[in-house]
């Protein structure tokens, strides 16, 4: 019986179109994000809102994040979401239900991490403090709107950082 069963399975297998692709797609779909494997979920959930996280100086003047932190706003936002998810989960809540206190704590953690990568020389002249903001964009009534930014965290620039 077993050989017949295997033969039948082999026949089915041989008839699957593009079977090598099917196998790898199945693997990536199940494993999800475990480097080097990925299901590449970028922009798979789209809704009417999107947000960014960015840094300004103490006077709310934007700083060029690529030059100052050697990383960008997109990475800062992913870090923020990861921190916030962990904090909210610890409090038994979903990301969307995070409190203002949790958002501030996540912001502080991100600003601290960015601070470790800070290149003071790349900062605009006169910058002695850093502020982390989150801004939301929304499509409402057929128009794009920029909501007022939310300040998440603030810290002084340490002179010991290079």
């Amino acid at each position, binding site marked *: 019986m077993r050989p017949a069963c295997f033969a039948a399975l082999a026949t089915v297998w041989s008839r699957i179109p593009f079977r090598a692709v099917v196998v790898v797609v199945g693997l990536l779909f199940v494993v999800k994000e475990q480097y080097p494997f990925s299901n590449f979920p970028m*922009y*798979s959930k789209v809704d009417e809102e999107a947000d960014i996280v960015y840094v300004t100086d103490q006077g709310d003047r934007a700083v060029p994040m690529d030059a100052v932190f050697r990383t960008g706003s997109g990475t800062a936002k992913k870090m923020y979401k990861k921190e916030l998810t962990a904090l909210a989960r610890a409090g038994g809540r979903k990301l969307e239900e995070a409190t203002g206190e949790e958002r501030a704590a996540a912001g502080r953690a991100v600003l601290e991490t960015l601070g470790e990568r800070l290149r003071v020389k790349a900062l605009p002249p006169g910058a002695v403090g850093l502020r982390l903001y989150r801004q939301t964009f*929304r499509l409402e009534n057929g128009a794009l709107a920029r909501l007022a930014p939310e300040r998440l965290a603030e810290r002084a620039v340490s002179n010991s950082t290079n």
Partner: protein
Amino acid sequence: MNEDSLRAERRWWQPGPLDWSAREMVWMRLGFAALVYVAIKWETGAWTTQKFPNGMAQVVDLTWIGRAPPGWGWKALTLGGLAAYVLGRLPVLGLLPALGFSLVIGTLGNSQGAINHSTQMVSMMLLGQFLVYLFPGAGAGLRPWWGPGLALQRRAVYAATVVMAASYVVCGVVKLSNSNFRWLQDAPFLAVQLLKTNWSHYHDTLEMPPVWLQAVTQALVEHPNLARLCFGSGLLIELAAFVVLINRRWALVGGVAIVALHLSISQLMNLNFLNHILAAGIFLVNVPGWVLRKAAGPEAG
């Protein structure tokens, strides 16, 4: 039954390695070796922690490579190994340093709390080829470890193209599954993502997005079906990426479509897809392969 007769008997929906010549595969390996080396983020000094471990970092501490970034000795070893791979000699040993650094550095970088998708496909293509050389199986010819024959080299290139095709297909499938199959219907909301990424780019560089881009974003908001057509064609390219395995012409068509997709997204959203564009150029568009076949005459197909 030899490889050519097997290929002739196969149906289009049961693809396998194409009839890539030894010379064109040298060009492919040369291009891919350069891509692998450039894609590895050698500057690991900023990654001295792994706060949100991903992949193998969940079981192994990889921060050692953040504290001691690879120096010129390791880079030279990697380059030497890649050179052996390009020449078709000792591919298992040759690919080992590049694969090791690609996996360790890529994993540590993605364990910082922000998952970036710029290197996964290249690392998987590298892993796929490595596994083909490591487990050559039957019909691999003599001394497959020292100098793989044509059949094994073709299998390695085929593995890389399968990984590439599957990466695009799964990306499309996930769009459908994560959105409860509403992705195309919700595509007009991507105008918000456009606005977001352009402001994100502003905060990275302090350069304002060009006026035409603001006009495009507004047009997508005002004409939802235009947005569905534009983004829907991108989804179609992803879901149909498996066609690149059928034959050379489909590989060329699919490769050009993938490159065009990435270039258009790069322009609209200020995102960098250089590794993906180069991978598609090397293995799918395959300009050296077409030039060599043209030079070989009409009987080469």
